């Protein structure tokens, strides 16, 4: 579905005094292949290049060298831009800065309106998208009166109305309270499970990564780790070196292992609980 081949990206800036061209390479050759229907999280701390990577999937940025293919279409070809954006929708961090319309239904209709779709079909899509994010009852509400979590769900509906195959979410929960985060994450997971939607979730929250099928860790514009959350979080030293958090239970298990206990890798509280109970059982 999504593929990056040796993706490099650099910002160019001209020094106003000397006229010298300054370049700053953000992404140093990224090779990724994301399968259709998968739920991938991209982890990395601020400035690691993860948002820059996300913008490449939507053809907002094009590579300085290398290629990005979305459903087989190259983002470099300007003819493909609208097809790519239709296939691969994008949700941004700040809910207030991506909502265009004052009323929920108009917001969701914005993308299909841009595509020149027949109003009857737009109506169907708006209804279906709002139902999919459980915001149907708010159809006529004002967007400014919604909570952060609700705004993000409306933003997701706005992308769903294009009927994409893939959604890229760039830290959609970073500005939300815990309740809003839960709402958004459960919506994303449901879309992935029930509609077989390919989801790329850019985040710096470990507990969100734990819930995905695959986690890619990016640091300083390079892929450092790539695998199932369990595999990735087993590299505790690497993650510590990058300065990323590790789920509390994973660290607990790690420390227990260092102290000589025979416990497996764990990423969820339930697993950890079971592992500890097992050890306690053996001791008796």
């Amino acid at each position, binding site marked *: 579905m999504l593929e990056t081949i040796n993706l490099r990206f650099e910002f160019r800036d001209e020094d106003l005094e000397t006229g010298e061209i300054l370049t700053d390479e953000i992404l140093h050759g990224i090779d990724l292949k994301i399968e259709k229907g998968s739920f991938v999280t991209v982890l990395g701390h601020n400035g690691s290049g993860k948002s820059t990577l996300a913008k490449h999937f939507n053809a907002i940025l094009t590579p300085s060298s290398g290629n990005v293919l979305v459903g087989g279409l190259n983002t470099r070809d300007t003819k493909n831009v609208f097809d790519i954006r239709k296939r691969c929708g994008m949700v941004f961090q700040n809910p207030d800065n991506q909502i265009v319309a004052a009323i929920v239904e108009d917001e969701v*209709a914005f993308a299909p309106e841009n595509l020149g779709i027949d109003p009857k079909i737009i109506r169907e899509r708006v209804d279906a998208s709002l139902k999919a994010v459980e915001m149907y009852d708010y159809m006529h509400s004002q967007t400014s009166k919604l909570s952060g979590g609700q705004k993000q769900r409306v933003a997701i509906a706005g992308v769903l109305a294009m009927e994409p195959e893939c959604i890229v979410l760039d830290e959609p929960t970073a500005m939300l309270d815990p309740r809003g985060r839960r709402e958004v994450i459960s919506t994303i997971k449901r879309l992935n499970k029930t509609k077989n939607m390919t989801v790329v979730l850019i985040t710096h929250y470990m507990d969100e990564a734990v819930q995905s099928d695959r986690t890619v860790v990016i640091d300083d514009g390079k892929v450092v780790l790539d695998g199932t959350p369990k595999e990735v979080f087993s590299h505790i030293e690497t993650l510590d070196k990058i300065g990323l958090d590790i789920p509390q239970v994973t660290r607990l298990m790690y420390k227990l292992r260092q102290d000589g206990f025979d416990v497996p890798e764990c990423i969820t509280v339930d697993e950890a609980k079971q592992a500890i109970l097992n050890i306690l059982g053996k001791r008796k």
Partner: protein
Amino acid sequence: MFKDIIIGQYINADSVLHRLDPKIKIILTVLYVVVLFIIRGSVSYVLFALMTLCLVLMSNIKPKVFIKGLKPLVFIIIFTAVMNLLLTPGTVMVRFWIFKITYEGIRSAVIMFTRLVLLVTGTSLLTLTTSPLKLTDAIETLLSPLSHIKVPAHEIAMMMSIAIRFIPTLADETDKIQKAQTSRGADFQSGNIITRARAMIPLLVPLFISAFRRADELATAMDSRCYNATIKRTKLNTSRIGKADISYALVFICTNIIIIMFGYII
């Protein structure tokens, strides 16, 4: 600070006025304003005020909302009325110190006061009963004949709708910045006008910077949802002018003609 101004603050309800086609509503509002300034004589004003009251009642919106909307403008309205009261030459009725109140002064003060109150109420009716987007859609349609002479009708409408959408967001932001600056010792209340105007700088600079940042992100978000000027856009809710709209417009126009006539006959 901005929260009390009702212009651009749509109230969702069901009423004849809410259902009326926004294009017709805009035209009728323009007509309303024109009529308000050409009527003569107290009978006409009373009838016109009664008509406005009827419209307010028909809108299914609490009169309290309209009164609240007038509040921020109280100063301007009173100021205009007082200026008219004191500065109109004519038959002197009362005289004190350097001021003299004339019969014509009282008359024009009352007229000015009524006009301004009715003007704000009448135009608020449009914005209270029409969602901002419907309003801009209607403006787009009304302006679209002008796109032949290169007037960017769609772009104007889009800019207006985004501006309307961001009013609450930026009002919140202003509030936050004001609190943040107050907590650092900024003083927005005391001093004369110049000091207070200067005190606005630490408020306005961060507000503008943040508005530009928001604009940048919004543009990216719009781009990512295929916003472009090349493909012909469609509309989710296309409004057609129906029979009910036309009969409403006719009733409104007739009422207004009668009201104008009263001023010239009696």
